[in-house]
């Protein structure tokens, strides 16, 4: 499913499909004192507070990449996406998507991108879903055959068929998201920005959406996903970009992050004898030991750079025979959560 647009716009030699250099957006808000007096004073002495939402971001995404763009609320994720869409005009820096400067040629850019704002619907609230999709068909100039073929495909993965005759306001959140996904992808855009695509969905729908996104990626569509759901990230993306306070603090493969930064390991042990917690803790002085639910069950948390797992096992063996053990896989989740909580500073 390569779009023929790539031939038209081409990617300028040596340039990624999505390319941002020193991209900066500063919002200026009037700093008014409260009340009428403040409002009047503001007329005479205009003062503003500035908020740097996106702070000289460099980002380059190659065609076909799937990038997770994560960060805490207010970090600048959505603002970045809106800059890439051409909705917002950057304060400084450069941005190009498929050779197009989005805010300068918004319409040309709009043809090659698909956007889903998870918290805003693009469906017409008072009309059946079918009508909204029909409008998009006309907006993107799709011929009837292509339109039908795409609807059929969406029906396979998103079970869109049952939603078509339903008035948008009557859809549940999960249904609305499925319909909105179809709306965002109807014109087979080559770059897709998804802002919280699985927010509020139940597990089965979530899985279906993720499977659909993986399929899109397999087709060569470039994905940029902003999400709070770490399952989305691990399931769909290969690359992780973490933004905080408007700045990119990590940009690299997802695997790399867990390797480098998920230092913490948990080992759950089942010992042959019901020994006391104190006895186990005595042989493991530098690590955290917790008693499990049953007799002889213990959980040990340690930094794998400081204590190799083997040493933990052999130390515990002195107290009792280890019958069974389970090691928790390091999760990207832990890393991102720590970044959000400000416990971890990433310096790639």
């Amino acid at each position, binding site marked *: 499913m390569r779009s023929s647009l790539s031939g038209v716009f081409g990617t300028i030699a040596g340039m990624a499909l999505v390319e941002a250099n020193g991209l900066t957006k500063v919002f200026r808000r009037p700093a008014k004192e409260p009340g009428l007096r403040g409002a009047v004073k503001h007329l005479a002495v205009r003062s503003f507070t500035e908020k740097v939402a996106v702070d000289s971001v460099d980002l380059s995404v190659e065609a076909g990449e799937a990038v997770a763009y994560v960060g805490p609320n207010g970090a600048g994720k*959505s603002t970045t996406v809106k800059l890439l869409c051409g909705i917002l005009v950057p304060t400084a820096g450069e941005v190009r998507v498929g050779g197009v400067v989005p805010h300068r040629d918004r319409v040309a850019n709009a043809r090659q991108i698909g956007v889903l704002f*998870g918290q805003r619907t693009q469906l*017409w609230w008072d009309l059946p879903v079918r009508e909204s999709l029909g409008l998009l068909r006309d907006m993107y100039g799709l011929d009837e055959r292509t339109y039908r073929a795409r609807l059929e495909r969406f029906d396979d993965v998103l079970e869109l068929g049952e939603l078509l005759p339903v008035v948008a306001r009557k859809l549940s959140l999960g249904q609305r998201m499925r319909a909105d996904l179809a709306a965002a992808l109807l014109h087979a855009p080559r770059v897709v920005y998804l802002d919280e695509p699985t927010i509020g969905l139940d597990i089965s729908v979530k899985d279906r959406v993720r499977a659909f996104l993986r399929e899109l990626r397999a087709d060569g569509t470039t994905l940029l996903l902003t999400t709070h759901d770490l399952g989305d990230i691990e399931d769909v993306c290969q690359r992780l970009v973490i933004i905080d306070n408007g700045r990119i603090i990590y940009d690299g493969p997802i695997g790399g992050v867990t390797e480098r930064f998920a230092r913490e390991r948990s080992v759950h042990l089942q010992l042959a004898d019901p020994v006391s917690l104190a006895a186990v803790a005595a042989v493991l002085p530098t690590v955290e030991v917790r008693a499990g639910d049953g007799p002889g069950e213990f959980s040990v948390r340690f930094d794998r750079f400081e204590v190799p797992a083997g040493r933990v096992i052999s130390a515990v063996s002195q107290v009792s025979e280890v019958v069974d053990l389970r090691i928790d896989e390091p999760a990207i989740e832990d890393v991102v959560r720590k970044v959000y909580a400000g416990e971890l500073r990433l310096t790639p």
Partner: protein
Amino acid sequence: MSLTVVKRRGGGVRLRPYVSLARMMARSLLTHRLNFVLGLFAVLFQLVAMLSVWGVLLRSGTSIAGFSWPQMKAYLLIAYATGSLLSFTDFRLAFRIRDGMVAVDLTKPVDFQRSRFAEAVGTGSVEGGFAVLVCAVVVAFTLPVAVPAPAQGALFAASLLLVLPLKFCLSYLTSMVCFWTQNVLGVALTRFAVTNLFSGALVPLVLLPGWLQGIAAVLPFASITYTPASIYLGRATGGAAWQLIGVQAAWVLALWWGSRLAWRRAVRQLTVHGG
């Protein structure tokens, strides 16, 4: 699956998206008939009040400033019909700017201003249809109403066609104020009041004091009501009528391009919070 590249024949404007938008808007309005009718109630109320007041003054056969009772009835109906188009119920764009929904509109491969105009055409066709219905009822119950000669009627139709784009531009321009202020209602009500007075919808402009007439003459609002009504009633004929239509068209062009300039500035102001 190959992406269909949208071809623009001879660099012209693709009409399909805009026709589709207008249709969606009209359909959307019709699903809320009650809301819609209630929204038009204020304008309808003004019509009833005006008919009563002018009826008392003119029914005896006198005429004021050249308006006989049948002429005044026609004038008031035209004022009602032109006033009901995109009146102060037209909050859609303002609300979408305030809620940040405008971000979704901006991801579409269509010209923003033309799209909003297409929506206005959809809205206007429903409002216009309703106004025609009301006028027909009023005419049926309060005959006689002045009727123009055929040639004059054609001029009137031309003039009437320019009312919607003109009102759209004014509504579009004032909605943009929402980029700076969050006060949607105040702006819309001010627009409604100013339009009502200076368009001649409240009182025919000839009856206003000289200095107010002077102000009205340099504002675009007279083109909304006073111009089509004057042409309908034959107060402006031939060259004078064409001149008035020319003024209307000039206002439409000036405001259309003015809106484009204003939009370019306003969109820099756009702040969309969250999501």
